[in-house]
């Protein structure tokens, strides 16, 4: 009897262990209060961004006669100089910020990972050349390089996106390359090679999965940075153009001109940026502690 009860217990334990790794990881992440809070903030913002047309009470662009209304029940964040509802504009702004942030990071990190993977796995002259280019690109301050790129592409949301993606390539390449060097020294790589696996197969099937941890850490750290850079570019007038509701743009021009009479015009868009970036940064910190305790805080 006792033995049977015991084996039954063991079975449920086994069942629990059969959860796919990604799910188990998410559950572990959710148990950390800081990560959970960040995930909730990010989740709300993503939902707001995806369903902005339904969530936002007003049209973010159409003007009205209710100018400079202070925050109230009908306008939770007040209205701006053109009578536009700031709450709706901030919700629609989430769409631009998150879109530019996520897409630029995915593009930049994917590009940088390929460069780092090839550079680290192939080595030799190719590695040397690629690393000199990476060195040179890393010497440019991120904002300055994006500004220079945007001046070439012309100011728009899309050029900001592409410029930010380019800025992330060298940093990712550097991190992935050094991770590849560590993985490459493992016996299983030699084993794969001895079994006749092609270099390309080794690179993508054997090395890439083992350097995913630093790549994931980079993604979360860069997401916050990407949102900040997009906001800065739009603030300076080199990103999203009016009348589109970008958080950075809302803070420039009229947001600052009227801030004494209508401080809410400058407060809420800035709070939105800060909250989004803070959530991604905190999530990145937790991820780094969980995935690689040796990687230090930047």
């Amino acid at each position, binding site marked *: 009897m006792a033995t049977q009860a015991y084996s039954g217990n063991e079975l449920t334990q086994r069942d629990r262990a059969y959860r796919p790794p990604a799910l188990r990881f998410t559950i572990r992440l959710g148990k950390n209060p800081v990560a959970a809070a960040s995930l909730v903030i990010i989740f709300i913002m993503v939902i707001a961004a995806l369903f902005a047309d339904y969530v936002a009470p007003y049209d973010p662009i159409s003007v009205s006669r209710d100018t400079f209304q202070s925050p109230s029940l009908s306008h939770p964040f007040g209205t701006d100089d053109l009578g536009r509802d700031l709450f709706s504009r901030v919700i629609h702004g989430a769409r631009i910020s998150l879109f530019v942030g996520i897409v630029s990071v995915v593009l930049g990190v994917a590009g940088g990972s390929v460069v780092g993977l090839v550079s680290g796995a192939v080595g030799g002259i190719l590695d040397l050349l690629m690393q*000199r280019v990476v060195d*040179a690109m890393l010497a440019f301050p991120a904002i300055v390089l994006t500004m220079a790129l945007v001046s070439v592409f012309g100011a728009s949301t899309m050029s900001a996106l592409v410029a930010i993606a380019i800025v992330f390539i060298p940093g990712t390449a550097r991190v992935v390359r050094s991770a590849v060097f560590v993985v490459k020294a493992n016996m299983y790589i030699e084993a794969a090679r001895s079994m006749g696996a092609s270099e390309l197969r080794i690179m993508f099937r054997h090395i890439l999965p083992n350097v995913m941890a630093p790549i994931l850490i980079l993604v979360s750290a860069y997401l916050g940075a990407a949102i900040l850079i997009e906001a800065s570019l739009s603030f300076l007038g080199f990103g999203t153009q009016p009348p589109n509701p970008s958080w950075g743009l809302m803070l420039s021009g009229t947001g600052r001109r009227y801030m004494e009479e209508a401080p809410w015009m*400058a407060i809420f868009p800035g709070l939105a940026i800060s909250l989004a970036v803070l959530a991604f940064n905190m999530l990145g910190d937790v991820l780094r502690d969980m995935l690689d305790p040796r990687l230090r*805080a930047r």
Partner: protein
Amino acid sequence: MTQYIVRRLLMAVPSMLLVSLIIFSLVRLVDGDVVMARLAEGGYVTDDQLAAMRAELGIDRPFVTQYLDYMVHLMRGDFGKSLWDSQPVWNQIVDHMEVSLQLAVMSILLAIVIAIPLGIISAIRANTPLDYGARLFAILGLSLPDFWIATMLILGLTLWVGWLPEFGYWPIWEDPAKNLEALIFPALIVGYRFSATTARMTRSSVLEVLREDYIRTAWSKGMRERAVVLNHALRNALIPVITIMGGQIGFLLGGLVVIETIFSLPGMGRLMFNAINQRDYPVIQGITLVMASIFILVNLLVDLTYAVIDPRIRYS
């Protein structure tokens, strides 16, 4: 040591060449726009005029010739002329360098004074409310946009204090009081972000060193906490901190662009901002090149300070 410096300087040369090549190619992508932008004011343009303007700017020649020509001029300290007012770019950069330099130095000093003690306290009181407070301060510094902090600061000062520092710039040797009044808030804001990363690095680096055997030895000898931390731990924890500060110089220079624009300071950042608005490519090219050079040189200096901090490090 001298040998090492010379070798590192020589190693910086290919990087610098690549940096210049990247900027040069970038700017060449849009030469059509430059000609068009300059002629746009004139209204109707003939093909002859276009060709003449291209010849005048020297952009009708092959790319390699143009680049070599640019490099030869660069070697002589000639960064070309502004498309806007035909002023030599180098002179403009030198004129605007002073403010940026002072702002950068003030920000770095503020960051060191704030961040290193904060990081140490955070590490030796790890997982106490004091530590949580310090870490919150640091992560907010990484997350709050500098232009929003500036806006909120100006707003707070006007609404609650009823006083604002005068916007503008007065050279420090002409009017030190006014100079500091104008620069203290910009320096605080730029320094905040810089101290955020520095404090985080100091914390994790000190935490790591505190686990070393020689720290246990120091404790067991009955040394006071102050002596253990300041004499034994800090010195060994400083190298990663200085490395990260070197790497953050890029962010510092980027922050200058935003903050100088907000506080109307005539620095390199504002020059860059104006140049982009005026599509003044030689100026954009020059500033980007100067900023990248500063980054490379500062990081060379960082490498050299390792030996000063840790005599065990020898350059070979």
